[in-house]
């Protein structure tokens, strides 16, 4: 039984890191594509490379540093961070699913970014385009920070930074290859559903590790994570249904028809 629990734990850890990284990479890709298509590729690609170096340095420094903490303290800190972070994702996903928040639309984000890139003036044609560099650098760094956060916390709590990093890099590589292939934003990726799944997984791991760090002995050991995930899924489903009903009831008569 413990083996099944450990395998499940690893599988869920890989899945959470892979999905979270994939969805963040899709958003970063949209920004880079919009700038590159309008203003040329050299400067945004240098911005992407610079952001990737900064992110790699953060992982290389933070990963080993966190592992210096005693394991219970580490799990308490990581659990608390994952809980707060995961609940942010889950809260937004529930608001989107119930209609209280607009669904994320890569096509619209691409169009807005492209329009902005077209309006901004250019510098010397042969020099560095600092607008493109900055937009690409900032986009990749901000979206990448979420990936780094997940890789470092997951990896440190399980002492498997390399495993979590491999899951993240696999997802990013897939998104980049798909982006190069289609040369347009990846609108068909079911981002909102993926974000819901990531919110559930991050919150589940947050409860599990936060509890362990605080001194809990989970019934069923590692397999308890599946029960937590099932509980959160049911809770979220119920909340979405309740909020949909609430929203429908608040609409003027005939507006929802």
């Amino acid at each position, binding site marked *: 039984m413990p083996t099944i629990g450990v395998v499940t734990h690893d599988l869920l850890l890989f899945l959470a890191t892979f999905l979270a990284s994939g969805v963040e990479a899709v958003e970063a890709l949209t920004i880079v594509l919009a700038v590159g298509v309008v203003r040329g590729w050299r400067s945004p690609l240098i911005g992407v490379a610079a952001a990737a170096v900064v992110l790699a340095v953060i992982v290389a420094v933070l990963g080993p540093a966190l592992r210096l903490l005693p394991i219970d303290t580490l799990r308490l800190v990581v659990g*608390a961070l994952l809980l707060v972070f995961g609940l942010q994702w889950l809260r937004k996903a*529930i608001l989107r699913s119930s209609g209280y928040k607009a669904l994320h639309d890569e096509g619209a984000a691409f169009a807005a970014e492209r329009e902005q890139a077209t309006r901004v003036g250019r510098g010397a044609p042969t020099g560095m385009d600092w607008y493109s560099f900055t937009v690409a650098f900032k986009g990749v760094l901000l979206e990448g920070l979420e990936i780094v*956060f997940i890789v470092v916390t997951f990896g440190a709590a399980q002492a498997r930074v390399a495993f979590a990093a491999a899951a993240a890099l696999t997802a990013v590589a897939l998104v980049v290859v798909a982006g190069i292939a289609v040369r347009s934003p990846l609108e068909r990726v079911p981002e909102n559903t993926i974000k819901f799944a990531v919110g559930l997984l991050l919150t589940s791991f947050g409860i599990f590790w936060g509890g362990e760090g605080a001194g809990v002995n989970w019934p069923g050991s590692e397999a308890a994570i599946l029960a937590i995930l099932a509980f959160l899924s049911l809770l979220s489903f119920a909340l979405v249904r309740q909020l949909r009903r609430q929203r429908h009831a608040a609409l003027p008569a005939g507006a929802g028809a």
Partner: protein
Amino acid sequence: MTYLRAFAAFWWDFIVGDDWRVAAGVAAGLAITAFLAHRDLAAWWVLPTTVALVLTVSLRHSTRRDG
């Protein structure tokens, strides 16, 4: 000073997000869990219950505010 404020605001937004009640609830849930666990009392139920409460309260607040 402006840079420091912007830096702090970025991390506050990154970690805490839109609703501080979520972070406060999580901190309270972890404290109660540690309190019970260190007295050899069953504490595994505290965090799932906390998450259910915090999520419900935060969503109710958000949907009432946004209409």
